[in-house]
């Protein structure tokens, strides 16, 4: 067992850290307060290869592994979790699905500009009545022979406003239930596609989250991904990998808050000594360091399993659950360590605390992840120590 990162992995980590510190830190508070999308920074992320980090070079991507993706997301999330979720939804939801299951034409038309960061992608699964229970799709894609007629509403779509290409999940044959669901690539500019107003959220406020309406949208047959009825299975597979991205985001939020708290505790003094030397604060820092390291091991391991071609569904569920719980718990503690300063925007930790909450909700709630892990236990897959 080797816990060391390779030189290339360290270089990716370093590049992402440098990018976050030099390009994302400035203005992060204002972008959060005023819900300003980091469009300029996202364009730079495209130029640096972060927006197609796992996509093969053949399609204009960087051809890197899931561990590189995780390392980059962790560093970016330490500074700006909104930029991180833009990158995560784009890469592991939209690009991964098209590269893995898209046709050659779909890859040439959509994947290359997406992987180069020239266009943004989003994944449209959630609906007003279908969140955790994703099989209850009310959006319909009626088979009209040459095309599908798409009607319905999608909710809480990350990158919804900026995405040029949308990966939409819809019900084609309700009688077949989840086996009648399909996935389609839909272009934002097509007639009948209407992006709703930007959501005013608790956290990740500079990422753009929208509802999207589809009214009699004609989707060409060739824009369906995979065989008829493959959509639900595809959506579940997308989420398996997507969880690794959100786990890395949660890890970065936790680690960012910890770094700020650890630093603050050495420069802030009370009762004649740095607060880090008071046991009450020292114990908080010890727990933060330990929990974050445990989450990091789970997240890196899930990425490692994915890179090794081994099943990673339970590992990504554990990683996402643990990292998001750690992020929520310890961003609250980071605010506490900062005292009154932690409650004002200038010190960043209150933003990280607000950002942390969503990691327990999106791409599978904490409760859903417990179900996934428990199912793996019942199947006997987690009967032995790993």
């Amino acid at each position, binding site marked *: 067992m080797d816990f060391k990162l390779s030189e290339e992995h360290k*270089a990716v980590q370093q590049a992402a850290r440098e990018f976050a510190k030099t390009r994302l830190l400035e203005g992060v508070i204002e972008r959060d307060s005023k819900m300003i999308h980091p469009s300029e920074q996202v364009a730079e992320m495209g130029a640096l290869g972060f927006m197609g980090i796992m996509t093969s070079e053949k399609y204009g991507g960087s051809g*890197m592994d899931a561990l590189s993706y995780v390392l980059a997301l962790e560093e970016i999330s330490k500074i700006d979790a909104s930029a991180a979720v833009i990158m995560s939804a784009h890469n592991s939801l939209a690009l991964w699905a098209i590269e893995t299951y898209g046709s050659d034409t779909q890859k040439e038309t959509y994947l290359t500009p997406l992987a180069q960061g020239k266009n943004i992608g989003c994944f449209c699964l959630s609906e007003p009545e279908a969140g955790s229970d994703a099989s209850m799709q009310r959006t319909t894609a009626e088979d009209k022979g040459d095309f599908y007629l798409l009607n319905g509403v999608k909710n809480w779509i990350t990158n919804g406003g900026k995405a040029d290409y949308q990966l939409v999940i819809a019900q084609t044959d309700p009688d077949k239930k989840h086996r009648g669901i399909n996935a389609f690539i839909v272009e934002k500019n097509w007639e009948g596609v209407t992006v709703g107003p930007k959501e005013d959220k608790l956290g990740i406020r500079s990422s753009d989250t929208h509802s999207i309406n589809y009214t009699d949208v004609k989707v060409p047959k060739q824009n369906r991904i995979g065989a008829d009825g493959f959509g639900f299975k595809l959506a579940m597979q997308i989420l398996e990998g997507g969880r690794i991205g959100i786990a890395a985001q949660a890890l970065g939020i936790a680690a960012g808050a910890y770094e700020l708290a650890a630093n603050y505790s050495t420069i802030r003094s009370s009762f004649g000594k740095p607060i880090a030397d008071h046991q009450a604060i020292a114990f908080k820092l010890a727990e933060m360091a330990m929990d974050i390291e445990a989450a990091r091991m789970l997240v890196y391991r899930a990425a490692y399993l994915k890179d090794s071609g081994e099943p990673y569904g339970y590992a990504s569920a554990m990683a996402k659950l643990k990292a998001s719980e750690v992020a929520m718990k310890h961003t609250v503690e980071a605010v506490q360590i900062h005292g009154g300063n932690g409650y004002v925007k200038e010190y960043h930790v209150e933003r990280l605390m607000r950002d942390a909450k969503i990691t327990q909700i999106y791409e599978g709630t904490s409760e859903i992840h417990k179900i996934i892990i428990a199912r793996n236990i019942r199947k006997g897959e987690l009967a032995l120590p790993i």
Partner: protein
Amino acid sequence: MKILVCISHVPDTTSKINFVENDTQFDTQGVQYIINPNDEFGLTRAMWFKEKSGASVDVISVGTAETEATLRKALAIGADNAIRVNATARDAQQVAKEIVAVMQENSYDLVIAGRESIDYNGGMVPGMIAALTGMNYLNNCIGLEIEGNQATAIREMDGGKETITSPLPLVIGAQKGLVEESDLRIPNMRGIMMARKKPLTVVEPTQEGQQVQTVSFEKPAPKGAVKLVDPENIDELISLLHNEAKVI
């Protein structure tokens, strides 16, 4: 045009500085290393020449295997070849002589080195390279253009600037201003992948080298506690500044 950029592998600017071995050695425990910022300004300008006029850019460092990560970063940014002289860098003359030995194998039109490294702040290597090779030398450069065989450099002086021309070959002492911090490049992902395949040649040192020996390092005294003076009490402030701080 062939450019050689000399790269020092130095502690990150935020590193905590401590010394060991009776204060004769820098404590490398937990220290992250970076490209010396003055060298990075030079490297970034070299990349500009590469893109504008097709110059080739080699990077060189005198150091042990740990310095390879720093050289790989330079390759990821866009340098074509890296050379590592396999020796612990001990003093400026040793480093300069090793670089010159490599230069004798490959002739360069332009050699760029940071005007000083941010670790030991010697500020001697580029000057020594020029002296050992007989090349022209311009230090503290905040601007550099090359037209044919002629370089035009802008040097920073006390309270002003000086514009100088010189034929190539030339040694440049680089600093901030040659490019700005906002021009510095973050390696892109493809660059990192390509850096793995670019040549990084390790050459053995030509000589023992060390001419000077460090007797001891000393850190500045820690800052004293802040004294707050009542704004009404100017006499006390003046007395403290005069008798204690001894600044007036």
